């Protein structure tokens, strides 16, 4: 694969220069495939989430259909969100950042495309199997046993290309975003193969399964998606403000402490495992205060002179709001791990609230911010190609939706926990009394879904624009 400087400077390729110098128009295709597939999966996940949420208004809603019963839809929704949206978009984002920061062309773009297609088809089969009752039974790792190796192969196809791209970088000095991308790329195969081998291929004995599933799910969200999202924040916030990042040392501190402490956790207090495992999990989670403070300080010192322009650019706006949500979700996780608090909040809506904030708030918003920057450039259009009204509406719907869902679920969770600690309240009574906030959260989920639909419309529009331009150029040449 030839390396073209001019194409590397403007993204992976797809700039007019790249075409002239003959790297081919193929380069944006794999990334577009990853991104488009991911956003469609997000749409699927949010729709399934809405179906689940409506079941709390009327438990009989679609209850007669085994395929659409609560548990199956919930499992499919988790899978679509984590593996349909999260992993491909993290990969796409990672590839783009590696190309851009390393000033290298994407290695073997057709292999990446193959991997992306393979991933999406394998996952579609997996999600269909989950809806038909083929769930594996491990939360965060729901697809059936035959699906895991397919996904792994697809990941390896893309991951190897990413490492080759990284290796071919022409910029010796590494920027923090590259560490985060490499960290994420490295983390995924490790946790995924651990889960695949010890849960599906040769299941560990007894409660170890639950422990391994907890650990994998915790790492998949906290470290893998966390790294991918932070890579984007570390790139776009300084880039768009035109200021250097305040401190690379603080970034390194955050990176290593997330890797070390953020990867330890996820085991609930009082879980039926030896106490040292739970202690390790609590201590690890508690120490994530270090990366939280490091990231917060670093970004505050980077942007403090530009606070008023943060809302001016859509990418910047999505990214910094996403980062705020990361901080809140992290702080909540630490609070929720303390034994006194967890006695009340564990197993309530409190945990679901945090997970929603992390995935839809932090990761979702950060990714959309990045996509608003990357997609027009991949298509050879300017950032003005987006329709600003749709963009603004998407931001407000997503932001308010995440906020409404979060606040309502946290209050439902805390209320539930406090009421349950009184033996006079029966469980059924407690659930009835915390229904109102739970039902309000449906509104938030609907808003996030509508926001995503607006993004898809906007995306379709710029795709059409790019196609038209291509056709016009072809005519000119003819």
């Amino acid at each position, binding site marked *: 694969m030839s390396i073209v400087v001019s194409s590397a400077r403007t993204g992976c390729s797809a700039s007019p220069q790249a075409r002239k110098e003959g790297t081919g128009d193929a380069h944006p295709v794999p990334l577009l495939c990853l991104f488009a597939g991911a956003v469609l999966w997000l749409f699927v996940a949010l729709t399934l989430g809405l179906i689940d949420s409506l079941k709390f208004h009327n438990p009989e809603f679609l209850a007669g259909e085994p395929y659409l019963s609560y548990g199956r839809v919930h499992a499919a929704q988790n899978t679509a969100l984590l593996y349909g949206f999260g992993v491909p978009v993290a990969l796409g984002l990672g590839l783009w950042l590696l190309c851009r920061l390393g000033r290298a062309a994407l290695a073997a773009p057709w292999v990446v495309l193959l991997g992306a297609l393979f991933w999406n088809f394998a996952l579609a089969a997996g999600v269909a199997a989950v809806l038909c009752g083929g769930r594996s039974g*491990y*939360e965060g790792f729901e697809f059936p046993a035959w699906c895991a190796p397919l996904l792994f192969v697809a990941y390896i196809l893309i991951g190897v290309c990413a490492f080759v791209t990284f290796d071919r970088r022409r910029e010796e000095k590494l920027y923090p975003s590259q560490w985060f991308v490499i960290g994420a790329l490295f983390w995924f195969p490790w946790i995924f193969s651990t889960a695949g081998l010890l849960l599906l291929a040769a*299941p560990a004995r007894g409660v170890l*399964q639950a422990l391994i599933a907890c*650990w994998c799910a915790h790492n998949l969200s906290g470290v893998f998606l966390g790294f991918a999202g932070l890579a984007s924040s570390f790139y776009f916030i300084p880039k768009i403000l035109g200021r250097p990042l305040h401190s690379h040392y603080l970034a390194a501190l955050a990176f290593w402490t997330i890797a070390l402490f953020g990867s330890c956790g996820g085991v609930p207090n009082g879980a039926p495992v030896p106490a040292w495992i739970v202690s390790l999990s609590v201590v690890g989670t508690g120490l994530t205060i270090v990366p939280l403070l490091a990231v917060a300080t670093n970004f505050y010192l980077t942007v403090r002179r530009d606070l008023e322009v943060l809302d001016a650019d859509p990418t910047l706006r999505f990214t910094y709001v996403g980062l705020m949500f990361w901080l809140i979700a992290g702080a909540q996780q630490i609070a929720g791990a303390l034994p006194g608090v967890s006695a009340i909040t564990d197993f309530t809506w409190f945990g679901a609230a945090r997970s929603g904030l992390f995935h839809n708030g932090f990761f979702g918003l950060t990714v959309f911010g990045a996509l608003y920057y990357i997609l027009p450039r991949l298509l050879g259009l300017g950032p003005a190609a987006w329709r600003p009204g749709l963009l603004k509406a998407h931001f407000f719907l997503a932001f308010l939706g995440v906020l409404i869902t979060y606040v309502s679920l946290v209050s439902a969770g805390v209320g539930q926990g406090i009421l349950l600690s009184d033996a006079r309240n029966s469980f059924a009574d407690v659930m009835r009394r915390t229904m109102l906030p739970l039902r309000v959260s449906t509104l938030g989920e609907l808003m996030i879904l509508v926001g995503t639909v607006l993004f898809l419309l906007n995306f379709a529009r710029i795709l059409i624009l790019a196609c038209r331009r291509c056709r016009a150029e072809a005519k000119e040449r003819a």
Partner: protein
Amino acid sequence: MNRGPLLFLGLFATMACSWLGFVLGPQLQLGGLTQTNTVVLGDALSQSYPVPEPGDARQGAEVYRANGCAFCHTEMVRPRSLGSDIVQSWGARRSLAEDYLFDQPVMLGSQRIGPDLANVGLRSDTNGILLRLYDPRRIIRGSLMPSYRFLFETRKIGFFPSPDALVLPPPDRPPPGCEVVPRPAARALAAYLMSLRQNGYLFEAPPPGQKTNAVPAVKTAAAK
């Protein structure tokens, strides 16, 4: 941090720490767990605990898994100091690693939209469970559980009424000449739920009122 190999080495080391702590370490400690000879709640004689679930319960676990019951029901009782599980009388003692020795897959669950089921077999009967699956809100007003009617079959009564037809109150009662019968999946699920009982006393969770555990004593008695 400008060197790729150094970055990889560092990542490998940090990842390995976490992996050793949460995968290998626990495997070394818990991977060799075996049945214990102990006393079981309400039984004076010592016996093996836990026992593998019977075949129909194993099939029921598959139904439980396939339908994602664990998204709303946990199967673990936390100790008295960490939550209200024992206060809510979901179990007499905390759950321990030994309790899940034969579970496949282990479905601890992570949220309680419904009550904990670790000991549901100790407080229910098969018929009650089937009725709940068929129409949860008839048993508990305002229950959030969806009805699982697809696990049941309404059919014409043959020569004789089926012995396991559900006895339903008027609004749910099938049309005359018909009966509601649990499908095999429903019966298996009920058998699985009835098999959920964490009632063996273990070293970490001695019988109430006893400071030390009786288990070692039982063991020595058996050895003599």
